[in-house]
């Protein structure tokens, strides 16, 4: 039982059996996290570098905690105060770090494809912690684990992904994963934030009306409006976005069922998600964060020991 891949670059490269294995392994690590001593010696001979070329709170802390809970040695690298500001290239930086006998690289980068590039040029196992507007595979896996935990299985479930589909790596990874695991997916948001040909390319439904999307789904994964990636004006104001696509308690109460609310964080409170929804029982946002550590432990464990080529 091992993964069919040496790196975790994206959900696109995974087989359904890989996803199943990661989710099953996650359950075991979740149990470890409930123990009095939340730590196992499994990766004590492994050194992992966390390379974050882009800011992050949850993902970085979650990876670091996962590594520590597995007894791996960790090095944290952020661009500020490093040689990157002197103009060192990504490949040079990574090769220099690897020459100090580092086994795995966790990479977040603003350029789509950066981890794929590294995987081709360095011998270490690469874990993608988010690359540009391409993929964020660990987020999709923890979302899937949270869905499975709450609804029993992923197959046949209806998931609406709401918000900025165009710039969201979380959306893309989630779409790949949910389709591979047999769920139904609707993407919803303003037409300017949903790429053309979504339906043809990914076999997902496209919905421009928030209420209709919510009425259809079992799970709503509400995305963050990424203010840092809005260089063109794709909607007139945050207020307008919030009026048309903000998930509020009022709209949820008007549905005839109780849907599960997810959000990858950080939340723009009052924009895509109202505070009273984010903090309600319907929302599993903090459980998603909790599951994140277990999912990342499972991934690091599975990538560290396998002999797959």
């Amino acid at each position: 039982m091992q993964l069919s891949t040496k790196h975790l670059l994206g959900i696109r490269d995974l087989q359904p059996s890989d996803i199943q294995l990661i989710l099953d392994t996650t359950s075991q690590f979740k149990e470890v996290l409930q123990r009095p001593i939340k730590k196992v010696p499994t990766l004590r001979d492994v050194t992992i570098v966390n390379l974050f070329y882009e800011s992050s709170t949850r993902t970085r802390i979650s990876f670091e905690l996962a590594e520590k809970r597995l007894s791996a040695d960790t090095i944290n690298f952020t661009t500020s105060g490093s040689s990157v500001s002197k103009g060192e290239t990504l490949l040079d930086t990574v090769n220099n770090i690897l020459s100090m006998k580092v086994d795995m690289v966790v990479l977040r980068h603003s350029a789509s494809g950066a981890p794929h590039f590294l995987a081709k040029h360095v011998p270490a196992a690469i874990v993608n912690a988010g690359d540009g507007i391409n993929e964020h595979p660990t987020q999709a896996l923890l979302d899937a684990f949270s869905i499975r935990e709450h609804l029993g299985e992923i197959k046949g479930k209806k998931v609406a992904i709401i918000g900025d589909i165009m710039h969201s790596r979380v959306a893309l990874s989630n779409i790949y994963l949910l389709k591979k695991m047999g769920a139904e997916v609707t993407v919803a948001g303003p037409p300017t934030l949903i790429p053309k040909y979504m339906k043809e390319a990914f076999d997902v439904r496209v919905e421009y009306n928030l209420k209709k999307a919510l009425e259809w789904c079992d799970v709503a994964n509400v995305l963050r409006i990424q203010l840092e990636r809005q260089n063109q004006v794709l909607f007139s104001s945050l207020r307008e976005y919030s009026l048309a696509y903000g998930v509020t308690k009022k709209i949820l109460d008007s549905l005839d069922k109780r849907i599960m609310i997810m959000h990858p964080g950080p939340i723009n409170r009052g924009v895509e998600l109202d505070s009273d929804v984010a903090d309600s029982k319907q929302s599993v946002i903090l459980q998603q964060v909790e599951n994140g550590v277990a999912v990342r432990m499972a991934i690091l464990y599975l990538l560290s020991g396998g002999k797959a080529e």
Partner: protein
Amino acid sequence: MKTILNAQQLAITLQRLSHQILENHIDLENTVLIGIQPRGIYVSDRIVEQIKRQVTAEKIQYGKLDITFYRDDVRQGLHTLNQTDIPFTIENKNVILIDDVLYTGRTIRAALDALLDFGRPSKVELCTLIDRRFSRQLPIQADYIGKSIDSIITQKVKVFWNEKDGRDEVSLL
């Protein structure tokens, strides 16, 4: 293939092991039973079944332990994970570890490490269905032994269980 224990002998042996455990731990006072995943569970399930005839069910504290994360060969290929389920504290308890075959002792070494992450037991004992003598690589011995056998390294001891393999039998391959 040589049969070491047939179904009837296996049943009698398991019964004896349960009685020996009860002899030393009357009413399982302050004592917990922990089976080692995956194949030790078949032994521990049977032993618990026997003990239930003597002791009221509420008094039996029975858990399952997976030792994959603690193995010393975890890097040499992935092992399938199993459920760990210890829904009680082992702090200051007598813990009886239960496994099917005691061979090199490395599994038990890992189990002892794993156990310590759940608390500090006052005493740990080991119950094994089959003890392969003279093949130990670590200084570990069992307190309750179903049957001791002398075997060479190229031989394999296989325990078959009705629940999984369709028959109860211990064989030397």
